[in-house]
C-alpha cells in the first residue's frame, strides 16, 4: 500500500467554519450551581465545547479548567469566566445554559437555537 508519506498526498484541508462572536446566557439555576462548583475561586473557567458524536452528531462538552490550549474566546458573565472554542462558535452562539434539578436526567442543560434536533438525553444535537 502506498500511504502517501511522500509529497504526493497531503491531508485533506479541514474546513474551518467562520468564527462568530458568541453571546450566551446562564439561567439563575445554572448560576447557583456554578457558584457551588467554583466557590470563591474565580480564576477557573467554564469551557463550553462541542465534540463529534452522540446520538445526533455533536455532543456538548462542559469542563471546568484553569486554562486551555484550545483557541477560545473568553466571556465574562455574572462574574464567571466562560471559554468557547472558536472552532465551535458557530454552533454555540445564542445558547442558554440551564440547570435542571431532577433525580434522573438532571444536570446542566443547553438550549441551543442552532440545533435542528437533539437526542432524548439532551447531551447531543445536530
Amino acid at each position, binding site marked *: *500500500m*502506498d*500511504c*502517501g508519506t511522500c509529497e*504526493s*498526498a*497531503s*491531508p*485533506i484541508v*479541514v*474546513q474551518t*467554519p467562520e468564527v462568530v462572536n458568541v453571546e450566551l446566557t446562564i439561567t439563575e439555576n445554572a448560576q447557583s450551581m456554578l457558584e457551588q462548583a467554583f466557590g470563591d475561586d474565580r480564576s477557573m473557567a467554564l469551557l463550553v*465545547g*462541542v*465534540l*463529534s*458524536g*452522540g*446520538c*445526533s*452528531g*455533536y*455532543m456538548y462538552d462542559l469542563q471546568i479548567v484553569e486554562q486551555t490550549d*484550545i483557541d477560545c474566546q473568553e466571556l465574562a458573565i455574572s462574574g464567571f469566566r466562560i471559554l468557547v*472554542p472558536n*472552532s*465551535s462558535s458557530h454552533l454555540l452562539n445564542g445558547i442558554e445554559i440551564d440547570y435542571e434539578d431532577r433525580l434522573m436526567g438532571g444536570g446542566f442543560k443547553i438550549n441551543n437555537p442552532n440545533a435542528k*434536533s437533539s*437526542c*432524548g438525553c439532551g*447531551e*447531543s444535537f*445536530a
Partner: protein
Amino acid sequence: MPRLAFDKASLLIFAGSDRIRFLDGLSSNKIDFSTQDIICTLVLSTKAKIMAQLHLFMLNDMLISITISENNDELLSYLNSKILTQNVSISDVSNLNYIDLVYDEDYNSPSVSNEEGFTSVTIDNLYSFDIYSKKHNRLPLSLDYQSFIDWRVAKLIPWHGYEITSKVNPYQCGLNSQVHENKGCYTGQEVLTRMRSRNKGMRELFVINNGEVEDEKITTKGTKQSLAIRRI
C-alpha cells in the same frame, strides 16, 4: 481465488491523538483494536441511514479505512465538519492505490498482512481487500461479475448498491453484526435502539430460489437463487 477491481472504495488514513474517539463517536461499532485487528463499522445519519461502511485496521501506527460510500465527497465533508477542536486529520490516498476484492478463498480469521507494499485485509473470514500501489501493474482481474454475485448469494453477504444503500439502516440490510448494542451514544443510535427494543422495522436478509417471489422484492439476482429482505 477470483479478483475484482473495487474502485468504488476509497482509502482514508486517520491521524491524530483523538482519531479513535472521533470514529467511535460517529460510527455504530465499538472501535477497540485491543480485541480485534479489523473493525467493520458504519457511519450513519441521525435517522440511522447508512452513509458509509468503514473497514478499519492499523498498519504501522496508521489507522486506515477502506471506505465505501455512495458519495465520498459528501462523506469527507461530513467527517470534516465534526472534527472541531479534536486532534484528527484525514488523508485520502485512494488515488495512489489499487483496491482489489478477492473472494472464494479459505480464510482462517480476519487479519491484516503487509509484505513488500502489498496489503491484504481479510473481512469476516469471507473475502479480502488487496491494496497495492499504482506504481505497480494491476494484477489480472476477473471479468465474471455474475460469479461473484452467485458466490455472495450463497454466502448471504449484503453488498453496496444492492442491499446496502443510503435508504436503509443496518438492521434492514443484514449488517446487524456491525452495530454494537452497548457501546453508548453514536450518531443514529437512538433510532436503532428504539427499533430493537420495540422489535419494529427489523428485517433480515435471506436466500430464495428464483421464481419464488416477485422480482421487485429481490435485491440481488443470482443465477439460480437470489437475495431478498423480509420483515422478521
